């Protein structure tokens, strides 16, 4: 029988490629297994959540459907003999600087289904990073640096509206606004239970409590297991109002109205029904299995006046005991919008840059909508200062903070505090595989499948998140010290500590910083 005869391939146990398999025959990654090292323990078979690795007992081989591999690295890490190496598949298509895998890969999928391509995590396109074009100052001779190991160094900061006039302090006209105290200028970004696992959320909550900072529930409600951490919770109110009640608002340190998200400005969230499990149903207060839809606009907010209405509805309901935050995505007119938000009564404004992560978003939107955090932050801080309303709200910067250097640069650009999302996930073992939307996270972070969830014990998530923030805090102190500063608050908006490298005049102006060497 010739190989090409009808039925011949099948009788040999081979598949007959179809035209539609075009995409699948070009995998992105290859699972390379050193057969000499493989002891057939089948750990990799059990560990892969993406149906890549199988065992054939007849032939005693472990084999792979390479096109399913997402390079999450779970099998590589777990293989006891280090027999596995995930590699890029082949040479790819003929070199083409215009058509990248991200384009033709998506087009193939869409040609299969006619659907919108979803993805997770943040924008991974090669846009320029302004963080990488800014460097920090250091003291030499004239202004001595401070040794943070031996001298006091303050990282604590208060979040919320500040008083109008220092002179009024203690007088009858003095009005005090609720502020919340963060011992470190780093808090955990909004990530909702449903998008992330309960274990991961608990880990962050416990870490926030121990660190004296905050975690953010996201828009998915507050699970009862998180009640012990309520004093470190920033609770979100979004258009779907999931789990939002008076009690929810009071189980918090602060309340946050979610208008937008950097990963998907202008579009809403949607937790598909199959992910609404019993626990998630309880937390969101919606029936099991029903879609949790939160459209982009809050349909009671069509103007700054309407936003004010909701801000004050929350303030009234909480009897003015909680600062109210408003979170927006960084978009073109962000400074004007921010000014309106502050005037509407927000005590905190969160600016989420276009590198910000997501549990699920259309890839096309994640990759092409919004502006970089750095410029948005600089514009917002500048505008609020110019209008003399900067004291009326704290600024939280988020969306793409990768290191303590980014923290310091963001604060020097005007932020009071930063939120970390992706970095917090990294502390729990995230390998940036961008599959969060599939609910099968191999590391137990963005999944609620019990077997996968069990891979991330709460204690571990907590310890590692604490370590990350502690490590960063030490570095922030070092950087403050070398700049001759001894408190994080004297760095806020202190753009003289930044210099630009390789930026145009206009970019320098937009960031409000000077050229290096000047």
């Amino acid at each position: 029988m010739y190989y090409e005869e009808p039925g011949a391939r099948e009788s040999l146990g081979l598949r007959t490629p179809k035209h539609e398999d075009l995409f699948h025959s070009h995998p992105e990654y290859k699972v390379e297994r050193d057969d000499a090292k493989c002891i057939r323990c089948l750990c990799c078979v059990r560990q892969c959540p993406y149906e890549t690795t199988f065992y054939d007992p007849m032939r005693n081989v472990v084999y792979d459907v390479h096109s399913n591999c997402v390079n999450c690295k779970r099998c590589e890490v777990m293989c006891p003999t280090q027999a596995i190496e995930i590699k890029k598949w082949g040479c790819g298509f003929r070199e083409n600087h215009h058509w990248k895998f991200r384009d033709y890969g998506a087009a193939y999928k869409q040609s299969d289904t006619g659907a919108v391509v979803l993805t997770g995590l943040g924008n991974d396109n090669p846009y320029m990073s302004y963080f990488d074009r800014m460097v920090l100052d250091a003291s030499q001779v004239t202004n001595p640096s401070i040794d943070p190991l031996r001298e006091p160094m303050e990282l604590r900061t208060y979040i919320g509206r500040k008083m109008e006039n220092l002179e009024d302090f203690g007088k009858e006209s003095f009005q005090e606004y609720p502020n919340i105290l963060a011992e470190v200028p780093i808090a955990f970004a909004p990530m909702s239970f449903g998008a992330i696992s309960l274990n991961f959320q608990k880990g962050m909550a416990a870490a926030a409590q121990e660190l004296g900072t905050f975690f953010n529930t996201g828009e998915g409600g507050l699970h009862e297991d998180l009640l012990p951490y309520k004093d470190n919770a920033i609770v979100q109110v979004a258009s779907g109002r999931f789990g939002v009640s008076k009690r929810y608002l009071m189980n918090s340190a602060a309340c946050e109205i979610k208008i937008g998200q950097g990963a998907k400005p202008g579009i809403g969230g949607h937790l598909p029904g199959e992910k609404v499990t019993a626990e998630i149903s309880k937390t969101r207060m919606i029936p099991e299995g029903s879609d949790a839809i939160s459209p982009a606009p809050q349909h009671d907010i069509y103007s700054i006046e309407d936003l004010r209405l909701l801000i004050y509805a929350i303030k009234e309901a909480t009897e003015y005991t909680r600062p109210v935050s408003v979170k927006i995505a960084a978009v073109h007119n962000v400074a004007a919008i921010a000014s309106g938000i502050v005037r509407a009564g927000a005590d905190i404004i969160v600016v989420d840059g276009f590198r910000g992560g997501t549990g699920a978003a259309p890839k096309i939107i994640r990759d092409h909508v919004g502006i970089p955090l750095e410029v948005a932050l600089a514009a917002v801080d500048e505008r609020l200062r110019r209008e003399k309303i900067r004291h009326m709200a704290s600024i939280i910067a988020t969306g793409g903070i990768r290191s303590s250097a980014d923290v310091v640069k963001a604060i020097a650009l005007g932020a009071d505090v930063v939120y970390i999302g992706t970095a917090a996930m990294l502390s729990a073992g995230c390998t940036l595989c961008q599959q969060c939307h599939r609910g099968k996270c191999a590391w137990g972070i963005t999944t609620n499948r019990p077997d996968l969830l069990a891979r991330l014990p709460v204690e571990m998530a907590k310890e590692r998140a604490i370590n990350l923030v502690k490590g960063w805090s030490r570095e922030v102190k070092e950087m403050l010290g070398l700049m001759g500063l001894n408190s994080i608050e004297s760095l806020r908006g202190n753009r003289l500590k930044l210099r630009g490298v390789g930026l145009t005049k206009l970019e320098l102006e937009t960031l409000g910083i000077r050229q290096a060497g000047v």
Partner: protein
Amino acid sequence: MKLINAKGVYYKQLNEMIRAEIRSGTKEIKVTNVVGQRYIGGGLEDGDVKIHIEGVPGEDLAAFMDGPTLNVRNNAQDGVGNTMNSGKIIVHGMAGDVIGYGMRGGKIYIRDDVGYRVGIHMKGYLDKVPVMVIGGRAGDFFGEYMAGGIVVLLGATTNNSKPIVGDYCAAGMHGGTIYIREEVEDRFLGKEVKKFSLEKKDEKLLTPILNEFLSDLDISLDIFDFSRYIKLIPVSSRPYGRMYVY
């Protein structure tokens, strides 16, 4: 019953006065001369509290409320019962836009017409079934994104030539039930719902609700001919299930 005169009192003080009364144990309060003060009843939690409101209360009446009964002897504005969890609101008049947004429990009875986007994002959960009855007519986007609960639109109190609901009625609806006491043409309806006539169980469900509505508002209406009603229920609890690829 405690009396609070709202004349010339800013909403912040007014609501503080109401809260102070409740804290001191008052169960029944009458607020007179209300002219647009916002957030009355906002975040109140005591289920035994009754507040009578004379005049027109302002926006977000009873936002995040969890228990009390509010009786409004006049019209109400936008945002009545915003994200309310339980309790009852009776409005002897009209109400504005976005009534019962994200409401998870309790009852809202409005005698006359309501504006746009009424009953949107309403949710039911376990024993919590929010109920809203509107005696008059409604604007566009009625019951949009509705995910649970019961909304009844009677079109009985206002004699109007305009249609009983506006465009995009029940668009994106994925839970709960809408009853409308009049045939609605398909062009007004979101594609996520189907129209049915009422069954016996619907009548059994509606009769006590309608009776309570009438007695709370102290009116009598000829609204028990269930053959006139239609019912809208979503075709799927997953309206957007097949839109995405991984």
